[in-house]
């Protein structure tokens, strides 16, 4: 038997805002019109590049850029909306550094290895258990992920694909004082949105089975 699937997703135990991998994305808003050059890095090596043109006349539609599959050499975006960087099929992960190409040429406008005020880290945890989100200064947020629930996966005939989603995302504020709330309970595959208010690199790491998932498992065993 050959079952081919993106096993990285199932075994994912760390999400690092500095390395964009599946099950996560970062959002940045380029407020200043102009042209930007983006370098896609794997480790310290540049593996791709593209331009971002921020133009007030551009449609007010967010841009999504798959760092593992750059389709356009230039992306045009309105300064009133955002650019989302993701890498859904690249478990090895990428970093992206965006620099101004005009005016203050070479000045870094965005580097996902150090998120800044206004950036958003989107994450989704599928593996049940207890996680800890930390920043570089030691702030922590405990996340408990429950077992998957039936009905989380739905087939969308019009798109000929299925989606696993669990309601709306949970919003977590991160600022100088750390994470708020400091402890959350999430369903498996429920979205987490870290609203960044202070510079940070956030790392979410699996700790252990247990928490809500553990209680659920015990309850299931007891029921049997």
């Amino acid at each position, binding site marked *: 038997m050959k079952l*081919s699937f993106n096993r990285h997703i199932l075994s994912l135990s760390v999400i690092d805002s500095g390395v964009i991998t599946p099950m996560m994305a970062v959002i940045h808003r380029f407020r200043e019109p102009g042209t930007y050059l983006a370098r896609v890095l794997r480790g310290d090596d540049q593996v791709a590049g593209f331009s971002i043109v921020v133009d007030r006349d551009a449609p007010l539609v*967010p841009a999504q850029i798959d760092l593992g599959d750059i389709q356009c050499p230039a992306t045009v975006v309105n300064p009133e909306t955002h650019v989302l960087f993701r890498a859904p099929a690249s478990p090895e992960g990428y970093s992206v550094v965006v620099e101004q190409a005009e005016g203050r040429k070479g000045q870094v406008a965005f580097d996902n290895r150090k998120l800044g005020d206004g950036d958003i880290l989107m994450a989704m945890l599928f593996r049940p258990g207890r996680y800890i989100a930390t920043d570089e200064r030691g702030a922590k947020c405990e996340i408990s992920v429950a*077992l998957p629930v039936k009905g989380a*996966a739905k087939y969308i005939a019009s798109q000929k694909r*299925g989606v696993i989603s669990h309601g709306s995302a949970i919003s977590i504020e991160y600022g100088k004082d750390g994470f708020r709330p400091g402890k959350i309970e999430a369903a498996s595959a429920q979205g987490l949105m870290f609203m960044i208010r202070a510079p940070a690199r956030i790392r979410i790491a699996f700790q252990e089975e247990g928490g809500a998932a553990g209680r659920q498992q015990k309850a299931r065993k007891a029921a049997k």
Partner: protein
Amino acid sequence: MALTSDCDFYGAILDKGINTVVRHVMRQRPSLFNYGTSPVRADPSLLCKKIDAAPGVTELITVLPAIPLLPMGSIDLGDIGGTDVTLSGGNLVLDFAVQLTALELDFHPGNIITLPAELSPPLQPQHLAFRAEVCAGLSCIPREVLKKFPIPRGIAGRMTRSAALSYLRNPVNPAIATGSRQMAPAALTYTGMSASTASLGDIGSSRYQRVPPIIYLPPNRFDCFCLDLFATGHGSFDGPEGNQRLLLSLDGIELQDLCPEGLENGIECYMMTLINRVVLPPLSDAISEIAFQLQEIPPNDGSLGSVQIGASTAVPHNPAIEDDQLKLFLNLEELTLVIPPITIGTGGGGGTPPTRIVKSRIQTGPASITGAVSEGAFRRIFDVIRDTGHFEIILAPQTASLFGISGSVSAHIKFHLANGTVDFQPDGTIRISELDVKWDLLDVTLSFDIPKLCFQLCGPVPWPPWWDCVDLGCLFEANPDFSFTISLPTGFTSEISLNAGISTYYGLGTPNQWLAYITPSRVDLDIIDIADTVGDILDAALDAAISALGLPSWVSDITSSIVDLVRGLLDIPDDLGEWLQNLIFDTLGVEVTIETYISQWLADSMPILALDDPLTALPADGALIPVRIPIEYLGASVDDDEITFIADVGG
């Protein structure tokens, strides 16, 4: 009454059909019917009757030694330098030609040939009548020519080489030196005798050495005469069982209008011997070759074993000569088959069948050749194929869209057969019932391109206030994502039944062939209910596959959730086995495909009779071209007793 009521195979050839065959043989192998000396071969215009030979024939006659008038010794003088004349040794001889023309056979009751009184008409039961026109010619050197040739007056019975050369270089008749067609043909025979150079025995030379040497000129014409020859005869089987052949032979012969009686008797004796020993054996072979084509049921190319056919002793006359036919009643003495695995479907099946066309019968009345296979013989053949055959079906991937999911199924199947009954039906079909299919291998490979299952995060973003959904990763991005081979348990038996007719086609190829196929109108294959077992197999296979992935132990806790997701996507009910069985055999049509493959194999790749057109009755032999008989039509039918084939020989 069935043709095969007392035998396994029946073959009959109509006298009109055999006469057509004879005409083909006479045109393509005229040397069987025309005889003469070397000069006749060199100059066929000497023949009494012109030969209507088929294109490509180079040997018109069988060369026989000239008739010796005086058995003398000879000398061979070889080529004479400076002339175009050859002196070759030999006895003093007469050239001749004998031809059998307008040869006909008439099987009892005689209605083609009117027998002369000497053969006591009417034609007796189980006998054949034979008629031929016999034409013969003997050479004769005209007197006026002979007068111009002085007999050398050397030592009696002796001519030296120098004398011969002297004579030839200073001929009395200049035509010899110039090689005139009339007087000095290419071959000049000198017959003489020398005591010192005798090449025949001393006995001859001592007795005839005094005979003066004679210059013999080859003939420039024959004095011809033609006589009607009538004969009666019978048929018999010749040869050991398993290698038998039909042999026609004459019992009585009558040459019309020939006197005196002694001359007539002598020539009749000669003709009887000639016809029985020279003419009829190859003609019998040609008939046997056609009649014993029945051995090609089933097709026997040598690799499939051997089929031994012998003459039946259960009939009063075999061969029988009756109803204007020569009838052969044959039994299937031995059938040994070594059947290599028969591959059906994309992995084999005998290749592309020839282009086939349907031809209607042109002639009317009884067919030239009739053959029949009894139901019992067919069963025996069927039994042997059933008991020795192993079948393999390689089912090419069948693609299907299933609940929006594209998938494919392929299979590798091996099976053998057991039991089953064969019945010829009065409605012209063959019914094979309750034939057990014993599955030896039943590997079914299913592949699915499972739709992407994406983790989608939806949430509010602030610039501008926006509800955004983004895919953060997807499972099942490959194609196919999910494939597995289920080795279904093979300890079960299925039943297959089919109804089939017989169809004949004319296949265009090298050579063209008349082909008869079993053409199923319906094949039913009942796969047993595998639902009970296959579900467990799939569950076990899934577990094994997930274990093989080497995922962390926690995954096992959510495996069921993933499997549930997959099952949901595929609309798999709780009864996984039933779903899989329906998927394999109904939705994806494996069962139908197997039935189709079997039908196509029988109808396209497994002719039960293949008859070359033209059919080689006598193979090539040196300069003799093969004798080929055109087969104008082949038809087949079934009734509740036998399969009957009819064939017409083309004119």
